[in-house]
């Protein structure tokens, strides 16, 4: 039996729905185990429902996509072009690559049939001809677990031809990536699945729901989003929407990492907790003798927060807010109000032992490596930002570097085909804006000291 280590301590603040069984030491990835726990009951239920009703339940649930953008899943499905008569495809985006994110890993490795059930319900709902799971190359065990689980489900008539005797047919193909971050961008993923370089497509006007894989209508959803579909069918959309808060329904799996005592993943009801709860109550706070320096609230492409800063303004309902980092609601809207984003739910804690310029240099190296090269501002700009921050770290910083970096970032965001432009510009723009004093001070640093640092990040 293929298995990964389990995390036996589940924090009392968690509300586990998607991960309900995942860390149970007795629970395994076999279909027998899944069926013993009531698995595939929702697929049976969905198979007896009109497809439009499943779509409506997902719309009613107000489920927002868990891949990063937070777009309502039901609305995405409703955009599907059904008039063209072309086949419809479903793609599960399992390219989990945003630095700081490791939630889909848990769902794939510990409860693969939940994902398969969610996908087949979705396939029923959108009348998909064929479904794909695009899984990143660096999860070889995950790919094997999924292949084995799909084969089991096929033998049980839950995937493949004539599913549950309904006459509906849809198979699932596991497609492995090859270590390119840009494949997480849905149109880049589609190009990759077509056997090409993963160059993202220009959108609008045509989104994948209208013109996607093989120029056919295609729905691309994240692993966590698709797993939720099963629970929406179980509860009904309206009932599901009572979990969490309006606009942040259901649970979300938050990933806490970096320089914190107890890193890990925590499934939490939407809007009921704060970043402070996650970092201090669940994560145990900073390590001995360390102070908070910064928090990246939603994957490394999210704009950074500096310890001690205050966020003020008015919420959409008109209520004023005045938050420190620890007060920001752990949901889609809180980080947005605080000038950043929750992205893929990846929270990275940085303490005062790290050189903040070096943190940015590490991030810049990532985005420069991962730019697909299609658009000049991103291809060249990400490289320049990497080169400048690496030079600064190496003891050759100049007083004008902060302005230069900010100027490069400003010339990338909004000028590229896909959001990688923003993803690579936002860290530089926000780090320089929030930590200008540290970037400026670098110019006076003793090169010898710069070279002899104990914690290297580039």
């Amino acid at each position, binding site marked *: 039996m293929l298995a990964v280590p389990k995390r036996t301590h589940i924090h009392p603040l968690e509300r586990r729905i998607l991960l309900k069984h995942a860390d149970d030491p007795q629970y395994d990835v076999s279909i027998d185990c899944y069926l013993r726990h009531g698995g595939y009951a929702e697929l049976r239920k969905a198979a007896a429902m009109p497809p439009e009703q499943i779509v409506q339940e997902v719309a009613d649930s107000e489920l927002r996509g868990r891949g990063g953008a937070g777009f309502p899943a039901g609305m995405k499905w409703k955009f599907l072009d059904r008039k063209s008569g072309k086949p419809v495809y479903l793609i599960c985006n399992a390219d989990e690559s945003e630095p700081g994110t490791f939630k889909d890993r848990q769902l794939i490795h510990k409860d693969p049939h939940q994902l398969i059930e969610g996908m087949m319900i979705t396939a029923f709902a959108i009348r998909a001809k064929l479904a794909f799971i695009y899984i990143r190359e660096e999860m*070889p065990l995950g790919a094997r677990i999924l292949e084995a689980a799909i084969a089991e489900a096929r033998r049980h008539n839950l995937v493949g031809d004539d599913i549950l005797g309904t006459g509906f047919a849809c198979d699932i193909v596991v497609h492995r*990536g090859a*270590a390119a971050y840009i494949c997480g961008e849905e149109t880049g993923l589609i190009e990759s699945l077509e*056997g090409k*370089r993963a160059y993202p497509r220009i959108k609008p006007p045509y989104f994948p729901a209208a013109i996607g894989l*093989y120029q056919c209508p295609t729905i691309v959803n994240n692993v966590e989003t698709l797993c939720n579909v099963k629970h929406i069918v179980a509860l009904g959309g309206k009932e599901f929407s009572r979990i969490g808060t309006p606009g942040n329904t259901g649970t979300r799996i938050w990933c806490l*990492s970096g*320089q914190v005592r107890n890193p890990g993943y925590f499934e939490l009801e939407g809007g009921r907790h704060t970043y402070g709860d996650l970092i201090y109550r669940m994560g145990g706070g900073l390590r001995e003798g360390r102070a908070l320096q910064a928090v990246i609230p939603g994957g490394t492409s999210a704009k950074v927060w500096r310890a001690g800063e205050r966020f003020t303004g008015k919420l959409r309902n008109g209520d004023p807010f005045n938050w420190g980092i620890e007060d920001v609601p752990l949901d889609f809207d809180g980080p947005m109000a605080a000038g950043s984003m929750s992205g893929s739910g990846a929270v990275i804690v940085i303490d005062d032992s790290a050189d903040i310029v070096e943190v940015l240099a590490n991030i810049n190296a990532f985005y420069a490596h991962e730019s697909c090269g299609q658009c000049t501002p991103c291809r060249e700009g990400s490289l320049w930002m990497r080169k400048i921050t690496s030079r600064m770290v190496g003891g050759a910083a100049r007083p004008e570097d902060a302005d230069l970096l900010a100027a490069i970032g400003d010339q990338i965001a909004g000028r590229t085909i896909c959001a990688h432009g923003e993803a690579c510009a936002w860290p530089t723009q926000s780090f320089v804006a929030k930590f200008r004093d540290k970037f400026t001070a670098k110019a006076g640093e003793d090169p010898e000291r710069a070279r002899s640092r104990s914690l290297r990040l580039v």
Partner: protein
Amino acid sequence: MAADLPPETLQAIDGLIARYPQARSALMPILHAIQKEQGCISLEMQEWAAAQLGLTPIQVREVVSFYPFYREHPIGARHIRVCRTLSCALNGGYRVCDAFKSAFATELGEVSPDGRVTVEFAECLASCGTAPVALVDDVLHENLTDEQVAAICEQIKRDTPARPAPPAPDNA
């Protein structure tokens, strides 16, 4: 052109093509199969893959050259990929990488002198909660300490026979 691949791999490749509505989609899995079997994807095999799918060789090479995982030159017997990205780096990823390199007296991306390993950095292995991490071939090692890295290196040296590279030709 005949491919130097075992019959079961050739059969698997036929199956791969049949899985997709359009043959070209099978390109990445075919490249995976070739690289798994031969350690890298030579220009000859790229031409072979193109012929299987009715593509031009350049349509294959642009894919091989785009994706970091595909390579045109062989690497060491074992492939060590240390996560370089932020959460791992904040928890000693660079030190882990240095330890692997020094255990095999090698540099990043090179074949070690004993031929046993190639050590590379990987960009975020999506296991940030158990940083620092490294993939050794298909196995993920988490929460790496100096002792664990040393143990992994010892294990590799026990399990994997040395196969030093032949001396480079003079006209290289």
